[in-house]
């Protein structure tokens, strides 16, 4: 075989393997580590709720899908059916609901159990949107108050 053709085949082979590897890598890419994610917005629970309550479309443009550090007073705290935990800030039903995955709950039991109603707290999570309350998912406790 001519050396040039051999070289061409090898190059195509390398590119092919690279594309395949990229595809497999992307397909299996891990979920974002939300506990280590960079905060994009820092806001109080009351302000965040008001923003969505007054103008949902505007608030969605600003906050939907973003990593938000929300600070506020714990109004309530409940264990959910799938072993996740929800902490309600600003108001029980018309406030900011912060949900911690069951995996986070399992490894941070002590820290979460220690949180009391009435306590000031800073929680980081992804803003999933607005039902009658603002919902934050993938939450973690932010320690630098």
């Amino acid at each position, binding site marked *: 075989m001519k050396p040039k053709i051999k070289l061409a085949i090898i190059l195509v082979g390398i590119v092919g393997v690279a594309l395949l590897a990229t595809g497999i890598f992307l*397909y299996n890419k891990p979920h974002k580590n939300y506990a280590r994610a960079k905060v994009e917005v820092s806001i109080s629970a009351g302000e965040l709720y008001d923003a969505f309550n007054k103008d949902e479309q505007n608030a969605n443009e600003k906050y939907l899908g973003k990593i938000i550090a929300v600070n506020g007073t714990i109004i309530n705290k409940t264990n959910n059916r799938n072993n996740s935990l*929800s902490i309600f800030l600003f108001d029980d039903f018309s406030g900011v609901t912060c949900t911690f995955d069951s995996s986070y709950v399992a490894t941070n039991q002590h820290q979460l159990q220690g949180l009391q109603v009435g306590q000031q707290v800073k929680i980081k999570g992804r803003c999933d*949107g607005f039902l009658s309350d603002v919902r934050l998912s993938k939450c973690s406790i932010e320690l630098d108050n």
Partner: protein
Amino acid sequence: MKNLFYIILLFASVNSNAQKYITRDGHIDFYSHAPLEDIRSTNDQVAASLDIITGQLSFAVLMKSFEFEKALMQQHFNENYIESDEYPRASFKGDIVQLSDVNFEKPGDYKVRVKGKLTLHGVTQEIDVPGNLKISKKSIVAYSTFNLKPKDFNIKIPAAVKNNIAESIQVNIKVELTP
């Protein structure tokens, strides 16, 4: 006379609170079975309510709260199919048909029919599906399995992935409602 009025008002307000059953962490999962791929996703943050006097049933769910095993699949679901930045929420508002067939005082598993408007991806469709109300002393568990077609809600599946995503998706909903 005034006192009688206030007493009646008190009873009315107490009764109206006892008729609405709600949850904030209800469960929805869906399953797509296709030749090349099976897709499963779960959402455990469903808000739902049932008025046991009127039979009005409603639920609301945020699309970004649907979890997938594969991050890439979750990304495609949000960005390409459901377009959750434009349509972050799906909701249902309807009624239990023939509510009188259900005795809320008597624990049991009642087969019901649910009719109403489902809004998904910005499109509203009338749905009429079977379901169950499992009544116990502590709660009402409403559950149902039904099928939805992505195309009915303008959800575009490119030809390239026709064998990865089913034309008809199975949806399971299970919400435990308390007063």
